[in-house]
């Protein structure tokens, strides 16, 4: 039962009751992760000019406030408005392509410069959240069992719209996050196993076809007209054989591996990481921040971080299990898969297990767009934890 016996309230919100209903495990683990991330960004800021510690702190604060607001808001009210989320999703993804608003950073045009204010924001981070809400809202209508193949296909079509739109930016990494977490929601919503297997086979064939056609276009009309740019293919090839090209695309993986490996058991300590400090490790404050952490804090620190992420996943799953609302379960399930995927992809990339994509490490990587979006996810999961009728 949600507590209604208010002793103090602000704007009609029962503060004491609200905090006592928050999931403490999630609160603690997120606090740990954010602190860990701030330490890492701080140490990166010592040598990397772009890594502004104060901006990151601002992102955490802003995200924290938004998370509290979102946590206090009853997520169940969102369920009926799938149509609105779909529109918002498409607009968010397409905004950066609008002339006058678009702002390009690091070669990816995923940024929007808010008019008049001048702030820049990566809308795709927010679109992740909207996509998961949208898919959960749609999938929850089937009450845990998708009745027919037609309905299943409709869900797949709905997911493919934001997924394809994000490719226009083009941002393969974020597109994959959309795809994986959305697909997880669909699978959680209860399709037949055979449909899922057939879908996976079809996707594999489609990808093979696209790459094949692309190679053909590339050979016939040149890289500028092809669907997948050469650098994207190069990244993939280098992942398959990191030693092939240590100065080009393979340089990043090689340097990340050296940073991680040379960290040893206890690490080199803050500011002593020669790979990061010397600038050998590219994007040491963003995409490769895990390599920086591994170098500075060694196996102990890196393992601690992986354990914190595991804890995060399980405290979120615990909330989903105790939730009595299918929409809530699907929401948290999607978010869990998103966290798992981003974490695995980002850390896996630093360990040469996964190809290089520009996916940030949740709560850790420098960047306020990502930080705010991640805090909103936490707020949403907390909202699911707070707003339940079943007492466990």
């Amino acid at each position, binding site marked *: 039962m949600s507590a209604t016996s208010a002793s103090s309230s602000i704007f009609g919100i029962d503060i004491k009751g609200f905090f006592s209903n928050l999931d403490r495990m999630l609160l603690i683990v997120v606090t740990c992760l954010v602190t860990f991330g701030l330490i890492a960004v701080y140490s990166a800021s010592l040598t990397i000019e772009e890594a502004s510690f104060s901006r990151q702190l601002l992102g955490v604060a802003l995200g924290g406030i938004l998370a509290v607001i979102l946590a206090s808001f009853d997520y169940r009210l969102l369920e009926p408005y*799938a*149509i609105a989320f*779909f*529109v918002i999703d*498409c*607009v968010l993804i397409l905004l950066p392509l*609008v*002339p*006058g*608003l678009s702002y390009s950073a690091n070669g990816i045009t995923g940024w929007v410069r808010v*008019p008049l204010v001048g702030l820049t924001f990566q809308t795709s981070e927010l679109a992740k959240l909207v996509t998961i809400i949208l898919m959960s809202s749609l999938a929850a*209508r*089937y*009450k*845990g*069992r998708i*009745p027919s193949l037609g*309905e299943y296909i*409709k869900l797949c*079509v*709905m997911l493919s719209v934001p997924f394809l739109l994000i490719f226009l930016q083009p941002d393969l990494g974020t597109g994959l996050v959309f795809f994986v977490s959305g697909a997880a929601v669909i*699978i*959680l919503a*209860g399709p037949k196993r055979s449909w899922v297997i057939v879908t996976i086979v079809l996707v594999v064939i489609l990808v093979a076809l696209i790459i094949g056609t692309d190679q053909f276009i590339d050979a016939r009309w040149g890289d500028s007209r092809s669907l997948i740019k050469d650098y994207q293919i190069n990244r993939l090839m280098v992942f398959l054989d990191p030693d092939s090209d240590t100065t080009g695309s393979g340089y990043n993986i090689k*340097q990340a*591996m050296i*940073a*991680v*490996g*040379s*960290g*040893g*058991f206890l690490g080199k300590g803050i500011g002593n990481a*020669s*790979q990061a*400090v*010397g*600038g*050998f490790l590219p994007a040491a404050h963003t995409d490769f921040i895990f390599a920086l952490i*591994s170098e500075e804090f*060694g*196996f102990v620190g*890196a*393992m601690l971080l*992986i354990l914190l992420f*595991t804890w995060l*996943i*399980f405290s979120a*799953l615990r909330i989903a*299990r105790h939730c009595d609302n*299918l929409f809530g*379960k699907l929401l948290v*399930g999607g978010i*869990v*898969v998103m966290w*798992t995927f981003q974490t*695995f992809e980002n850390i*896996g990339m630093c*360990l040469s*297990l996964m190809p290089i994509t520009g996916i940030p490490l949740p709560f850790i990587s420098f960047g306020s767009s990502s930080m705010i979006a991640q805090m909103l996810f936490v707020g949403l999961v907390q909202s699911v934890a707070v707003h339940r009728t079943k007492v466990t």
Partner: protein
Amino acid sequence: MSTWVWGVLIALVVALISLAVFVKVFKKINNRDQLGLKKNAVEYDLTGATASKINHDMAYSIEEQSDTSIRTRLRWLGYGAAGLFSILGLRLWGIQLLSGEQYTSQAESNRTREVSLKPARGRILDRNGIPLVENRLSMAVVADKSVVNNTRLVRRLSNLLGIPEITVRHNIQSIREGAQSARTVMIDASDAAVGYILEHPSQFPGVSIEDRTVRMYPQGSLACHVLGYTGSISSEEMKAFAEDSNNLVTYQAGDIVGKSGIEYEYEGVLQGIRGTRTVYVDASGDVTGVVSEVPAIPGSDIRLTIDIGIQRAAEDAILTGMDVARYFKYQPTGGTCICMNCKTGEVLALASYPDYDPSSFVGGISTEAWAQLIRADANTPLLNRVIDGLYPSASTIKPLTTSAALESRLITTDSMFYCPGLWEGFGEEYGMYCWNHDGHQDIDLHSGIVVSCDCVFYEIAKAFYSSKNPQGIQDMYRRWGLGSVTNIDLPGEYRGRIPDAEWKWNWYTWARDYDRAWQPGDTANIAIGQGDVLVTPLQMCYVYCGLANNGIQMKPHLMLDVLSNETRQPVITNHRIVQNKVNISRDILNFVNRALWGVINESSSLSEYFEDLPVEVLGKSGTGEAGDDPDNTHAWFIAAAPADDPTYVVTSLVEHGGGGSQVASHMCRQVLGAIYGVEMTDPISKILLANQQAGRID
């Protein structure tokens, strides 16, 4: 209206379109909801393992059942996440703990660099310590070879450095400094240009500035053929030096090495030993700290036997000689002048003309400068004619012919000869002219040398041809070192050629047997140093050193000693080496030297040149036929002083310069003047006057 308003409008249109798509797909979803679920429930009841459970427990609502299945799926999600994170943990363990050392050493090699410290090249000094070659610092603009593809960058460099775009492009494409090394765009760039490039690195990707120590020639082109020039090491040279046990230096691509002359000959002494500095660097290669340093050991200075004053006199003498030759309507194409100390073998001056500016090779020679050097009418300025110019020795060889005849007792010092002008000793059809077509009439051996009467030597040739040892003349020539290298410490010396029957047979393989066979006329020709005889000016100088030094030939050398970097004292001294001792009777040598004294002192015109010197001089002229045209001749003169016990031997040659006594004699006078401190005032007019007063002598 700003663009973002348009943006918002476009976004709204997109929103409307997506709305339409959504409604189209999902318009019936709410109507179908109940129907679908019910239909599904029936299907569900009939399927799988749960069917019996449903029968047992009909109280389970559909929602509760799906709740159980979603719980299962969430649990599997947890297992999946845990599995993936375990993979990460294992991988981390593998990289950090199992392979940690390997990556640590890689990180270490990442952040440290070995910078090689190039040693300063040793200087080259004259015998009194005056620098002929020094070093100076220079700022060079170098570029990566990829820069050539960047048209805008090439244009920017061209504007900044003030050299044509095509030159920039060409310099970058050139592989003269080795295919892998950075290309020198410009050496000695201005401070302003260097500063601009350093301040705007983003505008000049792949372009950098290098501090270079480069060669400097304070005396200009003086003694350029002795000094030689330097350049970047080639891969062939790298291999050759590695195999040379005398040269212990290890070379890297881009190293500057001697390419010719003393620079090449004493490369191992001049180069010095490379040092290394280990530094910390960041990813952009900027040095952030020094770990350790082994300083470079600079190359040692070399002192040459060259005397800068005599060398300058020798080079001036060639120019004067060529001027005189031109006055007499000859077309001289070059000349040489050598001064040797016959008692020690030291070379005091070694000049060859045309010369070149060795500083044009600094930082790689430009295309234009190279084209100038190899142009046909430039007459091969890079050729050191002293050791690589091959000429008929002409009459300068007559003392050796005389010695051979006297030693073989074919003639005596009292023998008399008759010169009719046209000598027909081998028959009317084989008539040979003396240079004096009027003939010298009755003449003795001494006068035969003094006036250089060819008929005297034709008679000697005839005597040899019919003697037991028909090749006695060649044997004598060879005993004095002709046909062999003199072993001077310069690279690439030629051996010349003393022809004999065997050589002629093998050389003219295309000719008829009669023409290949040795003819009496061949012997007559070599007796006067013509025909197929070829010598280098240095070889003749070496011969006269022996004549002047009682048959003892000292090894000619240019290196006096090597100076220690610390004490400035000699650490290696080039010892005087008796290379050859010609075993010949003192009487013959005395007779020959007496004749050589007569060449100058019994001739009014020649003695006039030399009379103001404090010492008497010996000498011999020579006029080598350079072709069928009787006026196309090389002018030789070789002099030795003091006459009673010579120390200095001066050998002069003007290529295509006319008559020896007329054109080349005063060159020796000029060099001796520099040695004895008696300058020849207004040499040209004096020479011309003397030439007018006396008839031409050869």
